[in-house]
């Protein structure tokens, strides 16, 4: 993967800041005169953007993951998993409990279709050895642990692969840690075979920390889009790629 140049990330940052500022002005004005009600998905999705940021753009400095621009099938799988109890977070489960598959599909498509610039990443706080280990796991994997490289499934640019594999960069470090930890301890599940559970269980806690440190410190490339095809045949079987309703 080609690391983005300094000027690229500066430009990304500037665009993001200006965009954010442009968004702030109307919402400040909204305090005096509320934005008019609109019969739109954005209006309906205010239940989501309270935590996931305006338009689902949550930045990497918090806990809640960004959902804007994520692959649609991935988002749909997560919505179904929360609703049906495979993922364990009561606020999400309660929120989604009364919604049917058709609406969850529309919600997933809505957020997947948003193209919003990413803010710059959080600086790493780990030592060089940890970051080297993280980079090694991400780019080459660990044959001794039978852990494939992250890039093998999540794309060479780590921006995910449409329609069902999510991006690994542009995410909060705490969120990455929490998700890998939840898979490792059996708290998070995906449709079987649960490839990420198998991988996380082969990783030591310090490996997970190294991965999260390195991933969270990577700037998001431009264009910040999921790849359209896997770089090579997938090295491990994943139920999420063939979940019911997934485009074949």
């Amino acid at each position, binding site marked *: 993967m080609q690391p983005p140049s300094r000027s690229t990330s500066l430009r990304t940052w500037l665009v993001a800041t200006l965009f954010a500022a442009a968004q702030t002005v109307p919402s400040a004005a909204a305090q005096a005169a*509320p934005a008019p009600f609109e019969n739109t998905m954005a209006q*309906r999705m205010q239940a989501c953007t*309270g935590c996931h940021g305006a338009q689902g753009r949550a930045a990497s400095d918090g806990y809640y993951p960004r959902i804007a621009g994520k692959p649609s099938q991935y988002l749909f799988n997560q919505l179904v998993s929360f609703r049906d109890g495979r993922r364990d977070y009561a*606020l999400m489960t*309660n*929120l*989604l409990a*009364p*919604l049917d598959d058709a*609406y969850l599909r529309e919600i997933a498509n809505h957020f997947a279709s948003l193209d919003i610039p990413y803010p710059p990443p959080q600086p790493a706080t780990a030592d060089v050895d940890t970051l080297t280990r993280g980079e090694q796991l991400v780019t080459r994997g660990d044959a001794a642990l039978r852990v494939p490289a992250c890039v093998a499934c999540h794309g060479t640019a780590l921006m995910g692969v449409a329609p069902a594999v999510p991006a690994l960069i542009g995410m909060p470090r705490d969120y990455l840690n929490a998700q890998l930890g939840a898979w490792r301890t059996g708290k998070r599940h995906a449709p079987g075979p649960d490839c990420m559970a198998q991988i996380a269980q082969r990783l030591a806690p310090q490996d997970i920390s190294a991965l999260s440190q390195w991933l969270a410190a990577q700037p998001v490339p431009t264009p910040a889009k999921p790849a359209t095809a896997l770089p090579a045949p997938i090295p491990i079987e994943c139920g999420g790629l063939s979940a019911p309703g997934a485009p074949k």
Partner: protein
Amino acid sequence: MSRPARWVATTLGLLVAIGLLLATLVAWLNVRGEAPLDNTPPRAATPEQIARGAYLARAGNCAGCHTARGGALYAGGRAVPTPFGNVYASNLTPDPGTGIGGWSDAAFWRALHHGRSRDGRLLYPAFPYPNYTRIERADADAIHAYLRSLAPVHQPNLRHELRFPFDQQAALAVWRALYFRAAPFEPNPARTPAFNRGAYLVEGLGHCNACHASRNALGATSNPLDLAGGLIPVQNWYAPSLTSPLEAGVAAWPVADVVALLKTGVAPHASVSGPMSDVVLGSTQHLNAADLDAMVEYLRASTRTDIVAPPDPDPPYRPSAAGGKLYEQHCAACHGERGEGVAGAYPALARNRAVLLDSTANLVHVILEGGFPPSTAGNPRPYGMPPFATVLSDSDVAALLTFMRASWGNQAPPVSAVEVGKFRATSR
């Protein structure tokens, strides 16, 4: 034998005799009216009977409990939380080993009407047989025919997790002797057929008062006609009174609005939330117009006329200034500067009975957890509200509610942070 010893022996003998008499009474009360079980296998069902059974199973929202979250339809395994522990709904698919594949129509009927399983065990009333006892035999047979038409799922039932002594059949027998009597539905000849159909659905299959009535210390509602509202145990959502015009009585509503609420989950000035979302999603949205009209006719007739609004307090309740700022910041964009809401999307808060209820349980749930009304055929793309559990403290929520309850013509008592904290603790 000395005089005192004789006295002790006589007293003991009497006590034993009374005990035996009571035990016999309890045993008799538990089997009265039951015919010997007919184990003739059910006759082949017609497609019409299966379709009718599917419809009735929706009306009873059987799948609401008998399907685990994300699990196979009707294969059981969902916990029904009670103050006495968890009761796990059973597998209703026709699997012969783990489901009800080997049951006769009479055994299925006996479970609904008498609350007794095929093997003779008494069933826990978390399975609402105090309501289902009203179900007619033909309807029970149709539901059974529908369940037999499902694909069998091999899924063993989970053991209930009840504390002693509630896990004992003898304790359950005493409970039933006190609070349960098998009784068919008796139509009221002075009323219209629609009223009676509505009563049959509300009191029986719909088991509305399993939530919309208060329960005593032993978990019993007074009778299937009681719709006076109550706090749902453990979940701590308040199911408002369906008879009080101050709560959820519908006599003053246009019939079309009540039907819309049950059919779609939203009405011009209201939307369902919490457990009622599940009911609309799994049950009432599937009911036909005639049955919904019948239920509404019955509910409108059940609204009491002797309950009047209390006079406005003197001095009036004052809105909280801190709450006003929070409202401006978090709520006004959708619910409006004057609490006017947006019809069909965001409920008005001004003069909304749900805001003025004595119990603040639902308000706390909604603010902490947010939510969507159910996605139904009539309202497939509902508008949602974000959860504020991670944003607002107990005192923030209290200030916000105190503001809402004393603004825009609302006059309801203030809410304390302690009260919010109590409900936050039970919010999942």
